[in-house]
């Protein structure tokens, strides 16, 4: 490791989360996987999705592991591969599916598409396409917690590629100077679209950048939900206690193309094979079975439940109305 930043490699968790949390983790990861599968491989191909589709297959542990223990009044700033965050924060399947199908009942009432969803009542901030823009915004959210003496935290998500943006730099630096309660979570899936990490930066780890800002940087196996949970839990506690921001790098891999129309021909196939073996969901299922938290039939049952929930939501969302044309003019201002 090239740096002496304090907590660099996450310890394996000493304390496991309670059983309910463990099962929630499994549920939300599997729900994410299935939902995105339906969106990308079914609905998109059936022409029912409007616009582009970006999924986080293989990266489900990151959003789920870091968000599962948040409080209601915490705030999450997801990015485009963090479906789990929306689900955990309580955005309904129907709202999400309607969003992807550009319906009036979607999270943005048809105004914006796919993952660009937000809901202040659920502590969910809708990101903009401009990568990294959510970093100073998350800093501002956390600043408002600090100046009002609230012990809330905010989680801010982005990919490896976004860390090259100027806004990322400005936002992280300000968070560290102001020492505000924000946890920055990078999904380092080693590609930005077709561009591999070494063409984006001359350092090995995103966490190597933390030192430049005087905040702790930590590297975790992003495909190990317990490792993510552990690192996030400690960073969240630190933030809540006034200890300032943390940067957590989750090593992972994008198990798809950049978007539904990209076949990822530029990715060496071995990489997919290597990471397929480290799939966060099957790994976690094995762990839970080994420890006796669930058995094979329980997993099948869970999958059936998820399928059913999604089936139902799709049926409803498909019947949901499109917005009225004139809605175009609404809500530019208060």
């Amino acid at each position, binding site marked *: 490791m090239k740096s002496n930043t304090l907590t660099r490699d996450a310890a394996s968790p000493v304390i496991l989360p309670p059983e309910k949390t463990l099962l929630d983790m499994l549920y939300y990861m599997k729900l994410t996987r299935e939902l995105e599968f339906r969106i990308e491989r079914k609905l998109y191909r059936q022409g029912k999705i409007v616009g582009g589709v970006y999924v986080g297959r293989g990266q489900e542990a990151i959003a789920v592991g870091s968000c599962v223990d948040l409080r209601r009044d915490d705030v999450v700033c997801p990015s485009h591969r963090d479906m789990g965050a929306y689900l955990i924060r309580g955005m309904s399947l129907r709202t999400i599916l309607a969003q992807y199908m550009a319906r009036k009942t979607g999270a943005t009432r048809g105004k914006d598409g796919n993952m660009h969803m*937000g809901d202040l009542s659920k502590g969910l901030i809708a990101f903009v396409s401009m990568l990294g823009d959510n970093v100073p*915004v998350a800093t501002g959210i*956390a*600043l408002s*917690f*600090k100046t009002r003496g609230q012990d809330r935290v905010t989680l801010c998500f982005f990919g490896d590629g976004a860390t090259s943006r100027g806004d990322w730099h*400005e936002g992280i630096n*300000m968070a560290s100077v102001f020492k505000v309660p924000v946890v920055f979570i990078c999904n380092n899936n080693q590609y930005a679209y077709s561009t591999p990490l070494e063409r984006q930066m001359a350092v090995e780890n995103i966490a190597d950048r933390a030192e430049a800002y005087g905040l702790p940087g930590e590297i975790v196996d992003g495909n190990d939900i317990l490792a993510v949970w552990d690192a996030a839990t400690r960073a969240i506690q630190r933030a809540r206690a006034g200890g300032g921001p943390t940067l957590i790098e989750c090593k992972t891999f994008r198990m798809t193309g950049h978007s539904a129309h990209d076949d990822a021909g530029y990715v060496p196939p071995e990489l997919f094979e290597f990471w397929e073996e480290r799939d966060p969901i099957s790994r976690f299922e094995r762990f839970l079975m080994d420890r006796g938290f669930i058995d094979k039939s329980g997993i099948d049952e869970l999958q059936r439940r998820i399928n059913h929930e999604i089936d139902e939501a799709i049926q409803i969302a498909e019947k949901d109305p499109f917005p009225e044309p004139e809605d175009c003019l609404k809500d530019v*201002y*208060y």
Partner: protein
Amino acid sequence: MPLTTYVEAIRQGIWEEMEKDERVFVLGEDVGIYGGAFKVTAGMLERFGEWRVIDTPISESGIVGTAIGAALMGMRPVAEMQFADFISCAFDQITNFAAKCRYRWGAGVPIVVRGPSGGGVHGGPFHSQNPEMYFVHTPGLKVVCPATAYDAKGLIKAAIRDPDPVIYFEHKFLYRRVKEELPSDDFVVPIGKAAIRRNGTDITVITYGAMIYIALEAAKELEKEGIDLHVLDLRSLLPFDNEAVLESVKKTNKVILLHEDTQIGGFAGELAAVISEQAFEYLDGPIRRITAPNTPVPYSPPLEEFFLPKVSDVVRVARELYAY
């Protein structure tokens, strides 16, 4: 009662809002201990403390992004750009994040981004810009350009209370050159309402910012020759007072559009379109533009003087139009 300068009016406006509403805070470069490069925030650190008067790193985009985040959480941030020219560095956060939140997902972003704009002080290409049109062209924002101390105070208060993002351009040439007696009560100037600065019958001059003084001076000169100017101060550009524009044109039937900003893509174009579409039949002469030329703002006094619209320009064009 004492006279209040334009710059002091802005300071008072922010101060009063901070006293009244603890969600209001200011952030920016050197706004704290130094009180701001132009002293707009002087004394605030001492009064309100370092978490309501926040000195930031040199990160315009970060400053605006931070303001947006705080605003989403219910705060009322007032972000200073040390010079309005540097708002270019925050362009993306303003136009893509702040401007579009409400439309996209119903989230209000009640931020104010303010800073000194305009020329006349030999500040050169990077300390004299009039960046208003970059933001006027962005639905979801509001843009105001006060010209008097009263409006400066009333509009900064309106901007702070506004539920949407407001870009507030204060003209640095006016900071200490313009003063007036201000009422002691808690007044606001509504965003989107123009003000008639001079009632006249022959030709309407529609303008804003420092240029209203050029128009008024020209009016004085022209009065001697019996040409009676009507001077409309827009005060807000987005939204602007469409009705007041049409009314004044319908009254005088001749119109001069005057601004300090460069010509191409300037606000005069928008006004010309509105007038030539909505008041076409009332026009008794061509719509005349008087603006800065299409160049950066030059530094050397003879160049800058050439660049800025002048009283003599207005007088000349008004005579031509009068004779038309």
